[in-house]
């Protein structure tokens, strides 16, 4: 039934026989989604990267399963979202029950005209399989995947980092300009540098299990508070690819993690949930507690942390994997421009300035959800029950019931790279927001999507037909950091549904400057080449 996990071949690299440690521009530690995203992005932007993974296969057990719309847009820029969507299950709807009663449901993508759904569910190992296949196609362009390369030591030097690596053929050393630590929550790199990773520990234990079964339950996120099949606790049921379902059951702080993992304990709990007739097979089980914590800063000189190595959240809300991929998206273009000498090293500081608030937002939501789900004292238990018992008859109380607020893309408010609005726009999108997608047509009439039509690098997205403006803007495409012009208007990209104009509150003449990670850097009602150049310099931390 289950395809065996793929094995990626360890190959002895000539570097391992070098007398002096060979030097590379970037080494990424960790072949999970975050490390793969950084490495693939860098190579696509012309910076070769070495990716080291201690194993020779995809992740085992079940980790991230929910990939958010924004993550899919990032994966699409990297070339693998369509395969993931095809392989995964699409969902937009969440339902929250109290006992047997449906309290409320939420649609995470209530409007049409979006290429990607609010979420797909795809087991992390399957997502990684697709991602590795994409990465392997980039070998000739400088993506050097090295499996069974386990980092054992990290020594930051003045102008480089030296690392020690253990392989089946013994140890060797490498040097790099930058080391990206995407090696997960138990990050070896973080430990090697002795960095604090502190935050809140939650005592409640949860049983997480993936089961394989044939069921015609709808493809939606179902969450129960105090269900009859698991009295006094919470439960989650969520579909994944290949007839695998995620079940997450709250066990309480006193549960014995060893005993609760035993099949004779697990099976009756699942049977109570699914009904006595349902045939199922347990794929994977774990009993876990969780923490919400992060590093004080993510960049430590030439060592930069991303994903779970930098920050950790609870699973409710799908904020771990999706937050990590947004780290990668944020980091890769900055690092590429710094390494090409087109932006000062200061640009890397903005990674902290932008991603630490994003991590804090994820930690805040995760902590709020956890505080609601697992009351810590009689008072918080009273408010928990008060909200749940009021919710049926008093709709306002449903908004207090928190089963995990699902991952939303970070808006980089307050980023030093943003140029604030001087013109008025009636949109929730603003400088710092990820650009919104919209259905558009190509000049040849073919259907496409706005984000798909953006190029690598910076883009000036211009709404209008004025030829003189176009001539004035044309030189922007010629600089050392070119700004590609994309136009929505006559003879260019079409917006037949009007969704692009509406989502961008665009009038003739409106121009958005988008960063390589598709976040809005600045926008104007009347584009002015010098203003665009200043905003570009600002987004690159280039001082006059």
């Amino acid at each position, binding site marked *: 039934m289950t395809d065996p996990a793929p094995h990626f071949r360890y190959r002895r690299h000539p570097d391992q026989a070098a007398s002096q440690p060979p030097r590379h521009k970037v080494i990424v530690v960790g072949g999970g989604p975050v490390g793969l995203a950084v490495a693939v992005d860098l190579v696509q932007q012309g910076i070769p990267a070495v990716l080291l993974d201690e194993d020779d296969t995809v992740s085992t057990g079940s980790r991230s399963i929910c990939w958010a719309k924004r993550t899919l847009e990032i994966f699409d820029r990297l070339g693998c979202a369509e395969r993931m969507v095809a392989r995964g299950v699409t969902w937009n709807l969440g339902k929250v029950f109290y006992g047997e009663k449906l309290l409320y449901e939420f649609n995470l993508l209530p409007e049409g005209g979006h290429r990607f759904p609010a979420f797909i569910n795809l087991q992390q190992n399957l997502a990684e399989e697709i991602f590795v296949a994409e990465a392997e196609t980039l070998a000739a362009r400088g993506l050097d995947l090295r499996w069974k390369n386990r980092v054992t030591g990290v020594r930051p030097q003045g102008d480089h980092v030296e690392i020690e690596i253990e392989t089946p053929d013994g140890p060797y050393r490498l040097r790099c300009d930058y080391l990206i630590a995407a090696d997960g929550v138990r990050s070896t790199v973080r430990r090697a540098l002795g960095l604090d990773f502190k935050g809140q520990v939650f005592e409640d234990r949860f049983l997480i299990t993936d089961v394989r079964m044939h069921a015609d339950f709808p493809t939606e996120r179902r969450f129960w508070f105090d269900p009859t099949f698991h009295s006094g606790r919470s439960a989650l049921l969520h579909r994944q690819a290949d007839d695998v379902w995620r079940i997450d059951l709250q066990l309480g702080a006193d549960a014995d993690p060893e005993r609760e993992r035993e099949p004779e304990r697990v099976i009756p709990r699942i049977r109570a949930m699914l009904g006595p007739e349902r045939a199922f097979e347990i794929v994977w089980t774990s009993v876990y507690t969780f923490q919400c914590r992060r590093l004080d800063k993510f960049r430590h000189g030439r060592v930069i942390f991303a994903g779970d190595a930098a920050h950790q959240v609870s699973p409710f809300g799908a904020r771990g994997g999706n937050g990590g991929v947004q780290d990668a998206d944020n980091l890769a273009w900055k690092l590429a421009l710094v390494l090409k000498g087109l932006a000062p090293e200061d640009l890397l500081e903005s990674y902290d300035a932008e991603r630490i608030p994003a991590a804090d937002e994820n930690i805040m939501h995760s902590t709020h959800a956890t505080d609601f789900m697992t009351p810590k004292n*009689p*008072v918080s238990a*009273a*408010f928990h*029950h*008060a*909200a749940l*018992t*009021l919710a049926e008859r*008093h709709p*306002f*109380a449903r908004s*207090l019931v928190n089963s995990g607020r699902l991952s939303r893309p970070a808006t980089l408010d307050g980023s030093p790279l943003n140029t604030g609005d001087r013109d008025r726009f009636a949109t929730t999108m603003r400088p710092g927001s990820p650009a919104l997608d919209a259905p558009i047509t190509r000049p040849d009439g073919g259907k496409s999507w706005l984000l798909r039509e953006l190029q690598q690098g910076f883009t000036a997205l211009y709404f209008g037909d004025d030829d003189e403006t176009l001539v004035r803007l044309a030189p922007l495409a010629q600089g050392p950091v070119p700004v590609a012009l994309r136009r929505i208007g006559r003879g260019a990209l079409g917006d037949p549904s009007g969704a692009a104009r509406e989502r961008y509150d665009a009038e003739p003449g409106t121009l958005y400057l988008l960063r390589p990670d598709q976040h809005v850097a600045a926008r104007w009602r009347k584009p002015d080449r010098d203003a665009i150049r200043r905003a570009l310099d600002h987004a690159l931390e280039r001082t006059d």
Partner: protein
Amino acid sequence: MSQLHPENRIGDPDTFYAELIELHRGLNDEQARLVDARLILLLANEVGDLGVLRQAMAAARQGI
């Protein structure tokens, strides 16, 4: 920003007070706590303004 009202706004304060106490009659501590929690949530929604709610929470905690 709206401020907490320093003066009484309840039409018949003595009756309100008596009914508030009466509301809890015959309840054990856990039940009384649940009733209070529901009441706080209902009233908080009536107030609606987070700024005012914060002032009320701070005032409630004052001196303790």
